[in-house]
């Protein structure tokens, strides 16, 4: 008895909510509405992106599925445009919504200045609203200027640094572009977690010869040593591969704890790369105990040969 009344109450709540949705949706019909598909709010990245859309006056109706609710996904089909952030995982959702609800999608990325700006531009351009587009340009200008100012001290330190990148999906090419924004050269990039279209984009960014098909630990290290890279940028699984070999590292995958997307995120990424590359611990860790003999073993011997 008690159980039934409980369910009854829940159903009533749903009815009321449905009325609310109708009201909200009718309100939103004529405005500029989008969904973010494949944005998972890693380490709070979404919260750096939403304010940008708010500023330019685009209404993000549903996030699929970072910081989202069941409720907001149920009215996702009322949006006019889908922005597909992680192309590899959720392309089917975007295609399905295009077929079923005739909502077009654009593949975008929020890593790096250029990617973020063009994502905002794409979204604004879609609505063919001159006022919106003008405002977007203004905001992009302001954000870029601000970001470049914040980045200047880091870029100075990162000039000429080299990185080996191994990540998957949208990140594989968008991170390369973000690193370019910071003045870092990508000397090799692992691709076995990327889709074919991702690989094409990577090729156009760094050239085919820098693509790393075999991403065994040994091969990653080879790539780092042979190109004299300063840092490995990869997922958490490879963190201790780098640390054990005393190579600076930042974690770029979904398990990480620092948001790197959007304009603010790029500044954080630059800060973290500077922090790890310039950390005094590498010098300390490479030195043997002041009484011990020099031991060269394992992968370090590979390095000794190369250098």
């Amino acid at each position, binding site marked *: 008895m008690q159980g039934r009344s409980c369910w009854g109450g829940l159903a009533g709540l749903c009815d009321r909510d449905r009325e609310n949705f109708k009201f909200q949706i009718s309100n939103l019909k004529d405005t500029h509405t989008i969904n973010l598909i494949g944005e998972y709010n890693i380490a709070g990245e979404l919260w750096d992106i939403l304010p940008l859309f708010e500023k330019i006056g685009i209404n993000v109706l549903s996030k699929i599925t970072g910081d989202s609710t069941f409720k907001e996904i149920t009215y996702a089909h009322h949006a006019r445009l889908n922005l597909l952030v992680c192309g590899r995982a959720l392309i089917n959702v975007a295609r399905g919504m295009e077929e079923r609800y005739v909502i077009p999608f654009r593949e975008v990325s929020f890593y790096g200045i250029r990617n973020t700006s063009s994502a905002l531009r794409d979204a604004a351009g879609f609505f063919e609203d001159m006022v919106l587009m003008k405002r977007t340009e203004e905001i992009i200008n302001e954000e870029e200027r601000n970001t470049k100012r914040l980045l200047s001290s880091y870029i100075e330190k990162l000039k000429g640094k080299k990185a080996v990148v191994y990540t998957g999906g949208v990140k594989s090419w968008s991170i390369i572009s973000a690193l370019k924004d910071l003045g870092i050269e990508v000397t090799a990039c692992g691709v076995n977690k990327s889709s074919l279209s991702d690989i094409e984009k990577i090729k156009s960014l760094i050239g085919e010869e820098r693509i790393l098909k075999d991403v065994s630990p040994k091969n990653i290290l080879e790539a780092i040593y042979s190109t004299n890279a300063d840092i490995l940028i990869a997922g958490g699984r490879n963190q201790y591969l780098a*640390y054990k070999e*005393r190579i600076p590292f*930042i974690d770029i995958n979904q398990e990480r*704890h620092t948001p790197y997307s959007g304009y603010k995120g790029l500044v954080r990424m630059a800060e973290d790369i500077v922090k*790890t590359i310039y*950390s005094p611990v590498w010098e*300390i*860790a490479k030195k043997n105990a002041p009484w011990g003999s020099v031991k060269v073993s394992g992968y370090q011997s590979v390095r000794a040969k190369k250098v």
Partner: protein
Amino acid sequence: MEIYKKSGLSVNPLKTSPALGAAYAIQGIKGAIALFHAAPGCTFLGKVLLTQHLREPVGLLGTDIKEMPTIMGGWDELKKRITDVCEKFKPSLIGVIGTALSEIRGEDIENIITNYELRITNCKMLYISAPDYMGGFGEGYAKAIEVIVENLVEGGTAISNQINILPCESLTAGDIEEIKDIISTFGLKPIVLSDLSLSMDGSKERFSNLPLDGTAIDEIKAMGRSSATFSIGEGMKRAGEILKDRFGIPLYPLSLPIGLSASDNFIRCLIEITGKKTSERIERWRKRLVDGMVDTHLLMAGKRVTLGLDGDILAGVSGFCLDMGMDVISDFGFRISDLEDMEDMAHDADLIITNSHGKEISERLGIPLLRMGFPVFDRFGEPLKLRAGYRGSLNLLFEMANIFYEDRFCNKR
């Protein structure tokens, strides 16, 4: 170091009385008791602080002089108190500590106790002058050790594997035990003055005002026969020099072994005097420390830390923080210090390291506090905390890193 002092007024002083430091040193000597020649309040509050920090019964009594003896001289009170203490507790040593109240009058404690000692057997009596105007906790501690070394140590034929360790006041019972362990792996027999790891480690199983264990008087006497002295901390150098001048024992003045390079230095000295290799265990802990430093470096880099600590431990911790790429925004030695000044400078810090008196500052500013130094009265286990040597440094590093981990998502970037 630039001295930062906003005003002449001390609002939340970092400095702790040197008399308390001297009493703290006495706690590591078997059967010893400290006696403040002071008003009741001096002893009472000092004893409260020592007891809260050590969480053990503390051997500290006072002569409880009132206004007349304070002005006219407290000879009779001192004599009476010494007689009482000897009868009641039968201590092996009484450290009579001159506090600011008695010292400023110029009380001739030395004269009283040297003339009086003749009538008391089996109890050493030492006069330790530790008025507030001589410095802080560390100075008082060092002064007590100097007096003990000066008066009790006897010479004799050298014992080749015996070594003197003079730890400074910042080393906890846990630290001292670790240092002793490391030294024993080199086949040496350490005599530690004073050995809080035996007396203030919680191993006392029945109530006693006196430390039931610790450095024995006979051991102190035998310190003159050791083959080397390690003084740990700047303040302990002078006591080591006394041993060097008197008995020709070579002195190795070391800094506090906190952080990799300071710990390396300590081990290197041991290798130098013994000619032996390091043990597997030491090598292993060194590797673990280096590994921990690499693992935590990104989290630590650029973190701003404010240190409100005493001289020796301040140098050790700030050196270690700099090795980790951290930013030491202000450090406070006890001479200059007022925690209020630290508060003014700590607004954009990520971490405050100071004693328990930093709690309110931490709360007001919303910055996490790592408790270290003296006194720590709102945490358990402080006397056994290990933060020295490779193992201890790793503990300290992880303590800091975990605070930053906790704080990560509300990071003020």
